[in-house]
Structure formats: C-alpha cells, structure tokens
C-alpha cells in the first residue's frame, strides 16, 4: 500500500492506487522538461498510460501564482504557501485519480523542489516538511544533477537570466549573474541534503540529453519490471485464494483488471509459476 510522508488528507484512500508515481527533480535548467518530453511517448509506446504534471499547472492556483510573480511583492511565506496550494490541488485532483486509474504519473518537480526553494528562502525546514507531510511517497525520484559551471552556459545561450530563477527576490541590488550563482548554489546544497534523506536516484545531467534519457529509461524499466512481477504474483495468490478448486495445470495468462494491464508490459519475461495445492504461489526463482 502507498504511504504519505506522515499525514493523511481527509477523504484520501491509499489503497488501490496501482499506478506509478515517478518524479523528475533537479534545479532550473537541468533538462527535466526535455526528459519528460522524451519519456512520455516512450512509455506510451510500451503500452502505459501516462499523465504528466508540474508546478503551477493546477486549475485552482496556477494563474494566481503567475499573476503574483509578475509583481514585485510576493513574500516568501506567501510564495511557499501558494505553491503548496497548487501542489495539493494537483495531488488530490490529478495525481491520485491518475494513480487510481493505473496511470504512470510523470511529475516535473515534486515537493523536494518546493522544500529546497523555501528552505533557501529562510523557512524553517521542519515547517515546510510538516506542510508536505501530506504528499504521497513516489515510486522513484530521479534527481538530474548539474553543477553551476555546466548550468551557466545553458542559461546564457538559451533563455537568459530569469528574475525568480536568479533568486532576485533574495538579493535585491545584486546583478542577475551574481544573484543567479548564489541562489543556484544554495539550491544545489539543499538538494544534495534532500537527496540522501529522500533517497533520490542521482543522474548526471551534465551529460547530453540522449545519455541522460537512456539512464532514465533503464531505471524506469527496472522499476516497472520489479513491480509488475510483484503485482503478478500477488494477483496469482488472490486468484488462487478466490478459487481454491482451480486445477493447478490451468495457465494464468491475463490480469483480470484491464486498468492494470499497463503494468504487465514486462510480464512476458516472467513465466507463469505453477501453483502448489495450498494456494501459495511463491517460487524463489521468480522473485528477482
């Protein structure tokens, strides 16, 4: 069963969320969006239904945040809470329903970016963790890590320096370059700290996009394979428990629930285990 980081929102059921929650994290310019754009069609080709989501995309608070960021008067606590509102709206109305329907949810950033930004802005780490204790624990967090030296050329030669990505709200009066370096370095430090706490899978994002993508795909395949075997075996046990008189030579080939079919893409690598009499389908050879 799925878990949260400690607190449960009213009305949220953690059972029956068969989808996968995959997080792509990283600082600004690490290439998260590029990777998600590559991963989504690939997963769909493999037969998985995919939903992608990211910051400020909530119907509730997205526009409000964008409007607030246009001005010069969005305070730090306000900013942190506005983003939390956006996050929880998407968690409840987008992420959880998609997981329930068996989708793979690819999320461009998750609570970790939001925590890092808030902590760098001086919020108490325990305060911000407490707010996000309602978040679901994802199935995997891929952290696209890139140092400031590799990041700078990307920023200079693509979109230029952005007010918020440069942390100009923190360093008014500095020029954008100095502010950018200070701010992104502070974020990197914080991300590294979060990395061990939340078990990030680190990916070197200084490499070219194709290499990064290959690594991500490999990791995601492993995750899906592992879980499809687990689900497969669990389902066999359930089926046998429900039909104790089932002849043991009858092959079990298909998941009964089409919503979960996406998880079985890799199942052809698993030979259906034969079952012993007492309905215990464990076979050591099929576990790994």
């Amino acid at each position, binding site marked *: 069963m799925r878990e949260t980081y400690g607190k449960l929102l009213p009305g949220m059921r953690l059972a029956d969320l068969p989808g996968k929650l995959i997080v792509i994290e990283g600082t600004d310019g690490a290439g998260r969006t590029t990777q998600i754009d590559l991963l989504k069609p690939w997963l769909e080709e493999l037969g998985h239904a995919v939903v992608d989501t990211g910051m400020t995309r909530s119907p509730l608070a997205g526009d409000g945040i964008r409007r*607030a960021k246009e001005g010069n008067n969005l305070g730090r*606590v306000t900013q942190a809470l506005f983003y939390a509102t956006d996050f929880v709206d998407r968690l409840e109305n987008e992420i959880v329903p998609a997981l329930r329907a068996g989708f793979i949810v690819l999320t461009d950033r998750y609570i970790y970016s939001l925590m890092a930004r808030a902590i760098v802005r*001086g*919020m108490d*780490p325990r305060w911000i963790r407490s707010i996000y204790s309602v978040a679901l624990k994802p199935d995997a967090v891929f952290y696209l890590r890139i140092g400031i030296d590799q990041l700078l050329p990307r920023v200079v030669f693509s979109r230029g320096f952005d007010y918020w990505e440069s942390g100009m709200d923190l360093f008014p009066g500095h020029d954008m370059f100095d502010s950018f370096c200070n701010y992104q370095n502070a974020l990197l430090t914080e991300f590294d700290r979060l990395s061990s706490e939340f078990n990030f899978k680190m990916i070197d994002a200084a490499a070219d996009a194709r290499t990064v993508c290959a690594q991500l795909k490999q990791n995601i395949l492993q995750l899906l394979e592992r879980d499809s075997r687990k689900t497969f075996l669990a389902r066999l046990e359930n089926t046998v428990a429900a039909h104790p008189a089932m002849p043991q030579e009858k092959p079990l080939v298909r998941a009964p629930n089409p919503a979960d079919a996406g998880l079985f893409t890799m199942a052809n690598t698993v030979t259906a285990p034969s079952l012993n009499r007492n309905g215990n389908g464990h076979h050591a050879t099929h576990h790994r």
Partner: protein
Amino acid sequence: MDIASGLRIGPFEVLNPLQPAVSRARRYGEHRCPGRLIVVEGIDGSGKSTQLSLLHKWLVAKGYGVVFSEWNSSPLVKDTTKHGKKKKMLTPATFSLIHSTDFADRTERSILPLLKAGAVVLCDRYIYTAFARDVARGMDREWVRELYGFAVKPTIAFYFRVPLETAIDRLLDGRDGFKFYEAGMDLNLAEDSVESFRLFQGRILSEYDKMIPEFGLTVVDATLPIEVQQAQVRQIVKSHLDKASELRVQA
C-alpha cells in the same frame, strides 16, 4: 525595542535568508514590535465585527493609528480563493492552504510592517478561525497549527461566544440561506443549507471551546447587550494600551 536584531517571525528568519533557521522557531512568536495586535473571533452571527468596528471608532477618537486587516482580503490571493469558491473546486486541504496563503501575504506585507511602525492592528478573524474551520472540515489538528507557525501572536484575542441558535436567528433575519462553503455544504452533512450550517458551525463551536484554554482566548459573552460587551472590550484593550508609550499616536 530591538526590532533590528534578527527578529524571528515563526519559521522564517527575516534578516538572514540564506541561513536556514536550524532550530525550530517558537510557534506564534511574541512579536517585539511597538504596535498592538487585537483580533476578534467567533462564528458568523456572533456580533464580533460590530464590536470590532465600535472599538475601531473609539481607538481613532483616542488618537491611535489604527489599521484593519480582514480575513481573506489579500490583493494577491483573494481572486484565487474567489475562483475556487465560485467553481466549488476547493477541498478541505486546498481550502485550508489558500486561506493560509492569504493570511501569509497579509502578515508579510501588512500586519508585521504595521506592528513595527507602531500601529494598532485590528483583525476580524485570525488563525483561530482557520484552526476551527479546517479541523471541522477534517484536517489534522496538529498539521493546521503547524501550517500557521509563522503567525504573530496577538496582544489580545477576543472570542465572542454565542449559542448556535442565537447566531442562526441573527443571520437568517437579514437573509434567507447561507453560502456554500460558509454552511459547510462541501462536506455533504445535510441537503438543506440551514441544517448544514447548523451541523458545521456546531463543530466549529466545539473547536473554539477547545482553543480557549489552549491559546488563552479572552471570552466575551456575545448574548449580552452590545453596549455591555463593548464596555468590557474597551476596558481590556485599555489595560494593554496604558503601558504603550511607544505607540504612534495620530496628530
């Protein structure tokens, strides 16, 4: 008065943004600003706004610099809240978060600077409203208290206590029925808005009662005549202003 020396407001360190506060900030920190923060609390129909408005007139007449801050009034946030309410897209969690966002903006841009400037800040509803409503909607009590950890502790928090039926009678005199979220219709407690209001506000009342000892709320019997309540309120406020030599007094 030592405002300049690293004032901490709840979880956030004002003067040292790149040094995360490692130790936990004391919740609802006593502000060390020269101003005074006076808040009124109570369910709809308790008469708290009437009392606050009378207090306002009295303070102005006395020459104090007085400023109002109303619940749900941040220019940055209130459109989002309105949008969410109109489309009925708020869940207990997002209802809670968007109100805390509004409150944060007012704290950062209005309440705190005004207190530093030596004003008397009057708040119609404060964090206790959020605690009562959000918990009545099923949010975790501890989570909501933590959420508002950045709030400034008020100088005085009046709680206008009134029986549910009295409040409903007062409210229904002026209009017929209640608004969707006001009546807690999002919780599907009852089909009828008056009945839903009764059930929802009943939960809120019981949360308020728990908060009286927890936060040291100053209880005013809101069934008493308006004048009697106001006399009590002024007397209590006066005792907190007498020692206030640093308050800015209008010319």
